[in-house]
């Protein structure tokens, strides 16, 4: 589903961000990405949603190959995956439901089906009552839930979360993380970069540690046999 093969990513100004990264993420998996700031977690995620393309090596996401990919195909791919960030990236001048509807409108979703989808996504993140609230009227945790609802509204096969709890207090963090777990247990894969090692320790999901652009630890390698038995690999 998501495959990196000997991927290198070099930026003109900052140099090598990833070197020789190979990994595979299967359907419905939950993967933590950990490592210090600047280790390459965000670069790895950007390559996954093809915001960046590899300098060397190749990336496949849901059958789309990064090498030589057309911008049009990247747009099509993004409709099948959801992305959330630390800073939520909501439109401040639109309500929660308008923010979610916006994501549907810009990919030419039939108008008649939009209200239902929006209501379902808001209900899924537990914010049905905040449909008409503006981002500034919501807490950080609520804003992140709206962002997650926006990411979920197109039924993605994977949710990519770059430090989704980075701006949240502990209670909101637990709430958002629980939401991501629920989403995962209904079949959507989750790739989550985080600094919060508490979450990582408590959850016992697959954990990949990145340092200086390289994968230095992958818990899947440690228990491949167990994963095979469970049919995840």
């Amino acid at each position, binding site marked *: 589903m998501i495959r990196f093969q000997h991927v290198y990513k070099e930026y003109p100004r900052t140099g090598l961000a990833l070197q020789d990264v190979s990994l595979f993420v299967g359907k419905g998996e939950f993967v933590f990405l950990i490592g210090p700031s600047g280790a390459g977690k965000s670069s790895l995620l950007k390559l996954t949603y093809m915001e960046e393309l590899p300098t060397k090596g190749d990336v496949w996401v849901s059958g789309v190959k990064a090498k030589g990919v057309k911008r049009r195909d990247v*747009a099509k791919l*993004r*409709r*099948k995956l959801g*992305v959330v960030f630390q800073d939520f990236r909501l439109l401040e001048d639109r309500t929660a439901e308008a923010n979610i509807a916006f994501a549907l*409108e*810009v990919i*030419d979703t039939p108008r008649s089906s939009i209200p239902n989808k929006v209501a379902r996504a808001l209900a899924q993140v537990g914010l049905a009552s905040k449909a008409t609230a503006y981002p500034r009227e919501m807490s950080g945790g609520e804003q992140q839930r709206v962002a997650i609802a*926006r990411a979920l509204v*197109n039924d993605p096969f994977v949710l990519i979360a770059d430090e989704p709890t980075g701006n949240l207090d502990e209670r909101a963090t637990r709430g958002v993380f629980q939401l991501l777990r629920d989403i995962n247990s209904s079949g959507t894969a989750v790739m989550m970069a985080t600094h919060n090692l508490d979450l990582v320790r408590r959850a016992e999901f697959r954990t990949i540690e990145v340092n200086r652009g390289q994968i230095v630890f992958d818990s899947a390698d440690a228990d491949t046999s167990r994963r095979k038995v469970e049919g995840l690999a």
Partner: protein
Amino acid sequence: MRLALRETMIGFRRAPVLSVLSITTIAFSLFAFGLFSLVAVNIRKTLRDVESRVEIRAFLAEGTPVEVVSAAMGDVGAFPEVIRVEYVSPDSALARARAELGEFKDVFESAFLPASIDVRLRDGFRDPNTVRTVAERIKAFQFVDDVRYGEDWVDKLHRIRNVATAAGLILGLAFAAVAVIIIGATIRMAVMARSREISIMRLVGATDAFIRRPFLIEGFLKGLLGGALALTLTWFASQVISRNFIQTEFFSGPLAALGIAGGALIGLLGSSLSVGRHLRKI
């Protein structure tokens, strides 16, 4: 399309001053172009009027028999370039000279002016070369003493018209380029102002064509409004000139429509040149 229109309107509403400013700037550059076009249109019209009066006058040798003259007139009248041939007797030449000279009319007392045949040419055959060849053919008749056709001013007229057309074209292109640059700059600002929306659109899978659409509509509308405003300004200017200086002719309906369409096209061009370049940076 409906969404693109809505997004365009949001763009207008969010930066009303900028929008009005860019429309007026476009309008003024098109207005300057409009004024030059107005001058060009009126020069052409004047030239057409003057040209229609281009005629060749062949002075006849004294004592040429009437039958010979009328036979020759038939021949000349059969030239494809010629629309009308007219015989002017010495008497009527005198009357005409008197009428043209006004207060000096008494100077002429007897019929000393030669008879002539006046030849008018068809529209499209009044350029210097055709006039010259026809004049030479007429001169070849034995009984024709001399041929006059105002060779100097036929040449001059055509030169003026060519210069006016060329100047109009060059200025038009220059002002169109200015308008394209202005629209490009305002679209650039609009793209920057909406970079957040654009990055989110990208993130959720909107295509470039979709993202570009509201900006193209914006450029098109600004050009259209700017063009219409410029046309209105030009119309007022022509009214003022007509009332206070000389009677001027305004653009014909199709030409006016062409002007507005030109504005819209310029808007579309400016925005498409700008939006593609700046979208890549977001």
